[in-house]
Structures are given as structure tokens and as C-alpha cells.
């Protein structure tokens, strides 16, 4: 069976899911949830892993999981209390299971001593404090037993129960099969009832069956299947009796748990590069379709309803196809988030912190490529928060805070982006120190004019690290700048906001996908640009009455009682203002997330369209403020604007300029 390896791979994948679920359930228990639902679900996860591990002959994993299962069963039956004593053991056991799983999957050294220690603490729990009985032998004994006890003649008494026939058994079939394993003679015994009392579906008699030269194990295999529906005597026992651990699962009858929406969904595993090929191809089709539509509309004179209708339908279907293809790549962010509680637990031990993590929004779906790249920055952010943000329990108590710190990790969709927030309730960012360090390292020239928010975000600058001691966790000088670079590489942004003494919040926004974008196409001085539609609030007509000019040249536009800064695109690019600048009479209002809403002067709106994003990095080089390019329906290339970073750049440039003047003055 050469496909066994495939099933083994599948089993490992299932184990990953099951372990993730188990971690979730244990975390819930840790948070005080003790309902039978969660206990049953946790038991079931362990139980399923054991079953699979045994089936694939993964002995180390099986033995360990068996002990774990016993304890989980005791927990759900109430024989073992889920409390401060047992929970740490369960959590460690789940970690150990992960380790054993990795060992089974990839080989490598196994920390036998640790496995043994955890297995013993599990056994101690299960035994209610009795010395560990060691891991119980598994059912494989059935196969491994020596067959030395081969009796010459064995006589077996076989008394079918009243349900023998209705349970799907057939005496004739049984006797024929028994014939194949050495049945020499069969005699019928018992009294026949009066014909009137005879129940045709019950078997009132019994058989005495004599076997010659039949191996005990064969006989036992043969008869064991009738255990439920017949009484069987006379099968010789071989060595130890079949060691089916009767005591393991004293499961209650309603033990089969109602699973929490984890219905079986059929799935197919496909290599990612095949999907990428499809995504690319669909992207090309979208462009071609747009081109065709545009050419049609130009060459065609008069109206042709049928054609127009077909083109509409085609573009709708192409769009749907694109959505479906993108959905293939989407997966819940859970696969990343579920690893975080474990990281927090490990760090608690290393850093001597007491921290619990609250995770929400795990079901938020994000593109696979984004998910994979998210683990590292997120881990780093958590490390940073635990190392620098959350204080030691003593410090917290002294500050009048609860002993254990809280990390809140959330994900949610916000338009075409996903917003990931990590909040801690630690000491907040020490702004004086941040400014001092930034000045010392020459990262900023002066602290004048920096808002508190600006200061907080200094920690993202390369080479910034306030950790005076180098810890093994986060203080190696590579810090939040790495996080920021990673996030930016994903087309995301990150910023932080801190309240001294109360905590820090990191916000990361990421595009849902790196492949397509819903965009507003605008024209500025004859060039076309794409602005991500998710950021566009509205478009407004400009006239003298709703515009204000500040003395520094900044133009403001009045919109429903508030003034928003408006910018010329060339100005944002760092060019001189074109002479036709004042003639623009339209602005689109864009939300920058970081700098509030701003206006962008344009000549006209072309329309909104889904565009296929082509990265500049691969074909040219990364440019701040441009997140990529796309090919429009008419074959022209349009740049995709990243308005927030354009504004950031502009602000930065403005800040630098006056400073230079001051210095030179």
C-alpha cells in the first residue's frame, strides 16, 4: 500500500488541526470555561489523535497520547478537577504532543526525559495522586503475541443471543467461515421450544464446535466479532488475556460530543503554485476582458444591445471567477493566531511574567501568502510587548495593577484590508527615553515638533532599541524595524499608540490579498493613476467658496464644516507644481488611517475597476508611495498610489525643510 504515506501526511495535517483545536479548548479552560462541551471537545481531539497515531504505528505518540486521553476522560467525567493544578499539566502535555508529532513527522532527537516527566505528571493526575502506573500497553498486543499455544483440539461453546440474527449474523455463514479455520465437528445443543413458541428470529440452541490445529489467536479473532451477540466459552487464552484497557474510557453514554460547527467539509490539497498560476491567468483574463470591452465600445457605432449585454455578462462572470479563485487562497488567520498562546506561555516562563492572551477574530480570512508571512512579525510584536511592555508581577502589583498582564490580539476586516491589533496593559512607551535614544543614535535631529504619536512610532526606526540589557527574547537590536519592514513588504502599515502606565497598542493593516485590488482610476495631467477604492471616501467639486489657502501654501477644502488638506499629486511626488495646478476643480477625499482624511486633486474620474496588481519590486524597484502598477483596459500602465505613505513622505519632507533652514540660519 504505497499510498499509506499519503494518508500519513493527511493524518499529520489533521493532527495539526486537532492540536490547534485542543490548544483552543485548553485556553478556554484556562480562562475559566469548564462546560462539558469544551471538555468533551478537548477529549475528542486527544482521542482522535491517539486513534490515528495507533493506526499509523507511531508508538511514542500513541503511548503518550493514551495517558493524556485517560486524564482528559477523567476530566470530563469529573474524576479529575480542571484547576490550577491540572491545567498546567494539560497544557504541557499538549505542547509535548506537538513535539512528539513533530518527531514522528520529521524524525530527529526526542527529549525522552521530558516526555517521561510529562507522562508521569499525567499519570499522577489520572491516578489521583497514586504513583504512575506507566503508560498502559496498547491493543497492539493482539498482533504481537506469540502463538506458541497451539492446542490440538479446541472445543468452543457458542450460544447465540436472541439478537444474533437481527444483529446481522448468519449461522450458516459463520459455520462456513469456521470451516476455513479448522472446524472439525459441530454439534447442536439445547431444547427446541414448542413450534407455536418458536421465534423465527431468535436462536434457542447452541453449538459445540470442535477445532483441530487452530491457533488460539485465530480462534480469538474469529469469535471476538460475535462478542456482542453471543456467549462464547472455551477459547484458550494465550499468555496475557487480550489487554484491552477496559478501564480507560468509562465514557458516559452521551459522550459523543456535539462538535462546535466543525462539520466535515470535503477538501482537496493542491500545491500553491498551481493556484498561483490560476490566479495569474485569471488576472490576465481580467485585463484582456477589459481591453476587449473597451475596444468594442470604440469600434462599435450605434447600439447593439445583445453584444452589450453579453459583454456585461462576461465581465460579471470574469469577476466572479476572480473572486472564486482568490477565495481558494484565503484561509482563516486562526492558523497563525492559534500559535500565539503557546508562545506567550513559553515567554512567561523565560521572562518571569504572568500574562494571558485573549484572541478574537480568528476566523477572519486572509490570503495564504499573507498568513505565512505574518507569523514572524506577530511573534516579534508579542515578544516585544512581553519584554518591554508588560511589567513583572511585582512591579504590576506595586503600580496597583492586577498581577497578570493581558495581551489582546484581534483581527477584523476593514474594507479591503485586514486590521490586526495587539494591545497590552503594560507600562506603555517611555517617550523621554525613546526621544533620548533617537537623538543619541542620530535617528532624529531634534525632538521639536514631534507629536506623542510621532515619538511612539520612532521605535519602528531601523537600529532603534531601548533595551539596555540584551535579553534572549527581544533585545538584540533587531526590533520593531524588522516588524515594520516585514509588514511593509506585505503592502501593510503598522503604527503604535501608547498611554503611559496603561499600555500600548500596535495596529497592523494588511491587504487581504496581494494580487488584485478594487481601484478608482483618476486622471492627473494626462496620466492615469489608481487609488485603492477602500481608501476613497468621496469626490467633491472644488470652487473658490469651499477652498482656503494657508500662508504656507497649504490648500484646504471645506467639507461639511471641517477643513481637509488637499494635495497636488506632483507635489506629493516631490516635483514642482505644474502651471495648470490651479485649474483642477475636483478632489477625491482619501482616508489615510494615519493622518486622517486628505484631498487629492485630480482632473477627472475615469471610473472604478478591479485591477491586477503587478509589483514594482520585481520589475523595477520599490518606490515609497507607489504600491504597484497595473495594466488598464486600453493597454496603458497606471501606477497604484499608496496615499498614506505619500502623505507621510510629504510630512516628513516638510518637517525636514524648516529644520534645515533653522540650522543654517
Amino acid at each position, binding site marked *: 500500500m504505497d499510498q499509506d504515506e499519503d*494518508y500519513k501526511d493527511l493524518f499529520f495535517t489533521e493532527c495539526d488541526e486537532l492540536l490547534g483545536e485542543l490548544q483552543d479548548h485548553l485556553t478556554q479552560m484556562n480562562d475559566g470555561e469548564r462546560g462539558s462541551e469544551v471538555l468533551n471537545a478537548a477529549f475528542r481531539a486527544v482521542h482522535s489523535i491517539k486513534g490515528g497515531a495507533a493506526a499509523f504505528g507511531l508508538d511514542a505518540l500513541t503511548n503518550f497520547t493514551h495517558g493524556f486521553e485517560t486524564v482528559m476522560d477523567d476530566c470530563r467525567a469529573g474524576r479529575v478537577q480542571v484547576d490550577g493544578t491540572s491545567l498546567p499539566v494539560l497544557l504541557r502535555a499538549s505542547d509535548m504532543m506537538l513535539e512528539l508529532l513533530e518527531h514522528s513527522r520529521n524524525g530527529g532527537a526526542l527529549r525522552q526525559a521530558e516526555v517521561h516527566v510529562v507522562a508521569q505528571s499525567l499519570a499522577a493526575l489520572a491516578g489521583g495522586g497514586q504513583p504512575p502506573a506507566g503508560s498502559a500497553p496498547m491493543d497492539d498486543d493482539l498482533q504481537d503475541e506469540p502463538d506458541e499455544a497451539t492446542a490440538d483440539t479446541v472445543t468452543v461453546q457458542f450460544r447465540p443471543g436472541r439478537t444474533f440474527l437481527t444483529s446481522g449474523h448468519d449461522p450458516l455463514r459463520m459455520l462456513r467461515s469456521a470451516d476455513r479455520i479448522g472446524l472439525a465437528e459441530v454439534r447442536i445443543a439445547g431444547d427446541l421450544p414448542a413450534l407455536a413458541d418458536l421465534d423465527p428470529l431468535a436462536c434457542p440452541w447452541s453449538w459445540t464446535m470442535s477445532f483441530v490445529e487452530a491457533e488460539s489467536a485465530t480462534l480469538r479473532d474469529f469469535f471476538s466479532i460475535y462478542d456482542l451477540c453471543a456467549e462464547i466459552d472455551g477459547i484458550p487464552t494465550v499468555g496475557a488475556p487480550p489487554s484491552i484497557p477496559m478501564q480507560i474510557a468509562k*465514557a458516559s453514554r452521551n459522550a459523543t460530543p456535539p462538535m462546535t460547527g466543525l462539520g466535515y467539509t470535503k477538501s482537496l490539497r493542491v500545491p500553491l503554485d498551481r493556484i498561483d498560476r490560476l490566479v495569474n491567468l485569471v488576472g490576465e483574463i481580467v485585463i484582456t476582458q477589459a481591453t476587449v470591452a473597451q475596444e468594442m465600445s470604440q469600434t462599435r457605432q450605434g447600439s447593439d444591445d445583445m453584444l452589450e449585454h453579453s459583454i456585461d455578462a462576461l465581465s460579471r462572470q470574469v469577476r466572479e471567477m476572480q473572486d472564486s479563485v482568490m477565495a481558494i487562497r484565503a484561509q482563516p488567520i486562526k492558523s497563525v493566531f492559534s500559535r500565539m498562546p503557546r508562545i506567550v506561555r513559553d515567554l512567561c516562563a523565560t521572562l518571569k511574567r504572568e500574562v494571558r492572551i485573549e484572541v478574537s477574530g480568528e476566523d477572519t480570512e486572509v490570503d495564504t501568502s499573507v498568513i505565512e508571512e505574518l507569523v514572524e512579525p506577530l511573534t516579534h510584536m508579542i515578544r516585544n510587548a512581553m519584554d518591554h511592555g508588560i511589567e513583572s508581577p511585582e512591579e504590576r502589583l506595586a503600580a496597583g495593577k492586577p498581577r497578570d498582564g493581558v495581551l489582546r490580539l484581534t483581527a477584523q476586516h476593514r474594507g479591503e484590508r485586514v486590521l490586526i491589533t495587539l494591545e497590552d496593559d503594560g507600562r506603555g512607551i517611555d517617550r523621554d527615553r525613546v526621544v533620548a535614544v533617537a537623538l543619541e543614535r542620530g535617528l532624529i535631529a531634534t525632538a521639536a515638533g514631534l507629536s506623542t504619536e510621532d515619538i511612539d512610532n520612532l521605535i519602528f526606526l531601523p537600529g532603534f532599541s531601548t533595551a539596555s540589557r540584551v535579553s534572549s527574547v527581544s533585545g538584540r537590536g533587531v526590533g520593531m524595524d524588522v516588524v515594520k519592514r516585514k509588514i511593509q513588504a506585505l503592502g501593510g502599515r503598522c503604527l503604535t499608540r501608547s498611554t503611559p502606565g496603561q499600555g500600548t497598542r500596535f495596529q497592523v493593516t494588511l491587504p487581504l490579498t496581494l494580487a488584485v485590488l478594487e481601484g478608482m482610476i483618476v486622471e492627473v495631467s494626462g496620466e492615469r493613476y489608481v487609488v485603492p477604492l477602500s481608501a476613497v471616501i468621496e469626490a467633491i467639486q472644488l470652487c473658490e467658496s469651499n477652498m482656503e489657502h494657508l500662508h504656507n501654501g497649504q490648500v484646504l477644502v471645506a467639507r461639511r464644516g471641517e477643513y481637509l488638506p488637499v494635495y497636488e499629486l506632483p507635489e506629493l511626488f516631490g516635483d514642482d507644481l505644474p502651471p495648470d495646478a490651479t485649474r483642477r476643480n475636483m478632489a477625491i477625499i482619501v482616508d489615510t488611517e494615519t493622518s486622517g482624511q486628505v484631498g487629492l486633486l485630480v482632473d477627472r474620474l475615469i471610473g472604478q475597476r478591479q485591477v491586477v496588481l503587478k509589483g514594482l519590486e520585481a520589475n523595477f524597484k520599490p518606490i515609497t508611495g507607489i504600491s504597484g502598477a497595473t495594466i488598464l483596459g486600453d493597454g496603458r500602465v497606471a501606477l497604484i498610489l499608496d496615499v498614506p505613505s505619500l502623505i507621510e513622505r510629504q510630512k516628513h519632507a516638510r518637517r525636514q525643510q524648516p529644520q534645515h533652514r533653522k540650522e543654517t540660519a
Partner: protein
Amino acid sequence: MRRVLAVDDTRSMLGLLVECLEDGGHTVFAASDGREALAALDTHRPDIVITDLNMPNMTGLEFIEAARQRPEGRFVPMILLTTETAQELKDEARRIQASGWLCKPFDPDQILDLVDQLT
């Protein structure tokens, strides 16, 4: 060659079971919970059923109990293949007229022998 209905919610286990039976030359129908199994019983009229116990939607026990009420399932051998060993569950299996109780992990030869033996 027999028509076998294999039921398990764990895809890898189901895969192993199906493959083992197909290697034995049987026609196998697969279902991933009791509910699917019940539907398959009506559609495919298997000669024998091998089912897991703990499954979402409808457990192996519930499935067999329901199957025994139908003409299609009355005299069909139905084996529970499980890692459970609790006596209460076995008692329940007997009550609902399951044909037999087999412990996971299974030996492929044992499964094939069993199909031969019971059908």
C-alpha cells in the same frame, strides 16, 4: 467481492479503511458520518458496514440503531471500528444490535478476513 460501506469522520482513517477494502477487491462506499452513512445505506445497499463510533452529526451507534429500523439495514452485518472500550458503550452497541465491536488500530488482513467471515 462485496459491497462495503465504510464510515469514519477522520479522513485519514477513512482513507486507510477504504484502501484496505479496495485492495481486498471489494466495492467500497465511503461516508463521513452517520447521516451520510444512512443515506448511503439506502442508495448502495451494502453487504456489510464498518463504522467509526465517535462522529459528528450522527454517531456510529445512532446510525446503526436507525439503520436497523429500515428494511435495507435489518440483516446487514454492521461492525463498529473504534478506539473506545467502555463497557457501557458495548452494552449500548449490543442493545441496538450492532454485529460486532472491533478495536482500532485495525490490521488490514483482519478486516478483510472479517468481511469474508460475515458476508
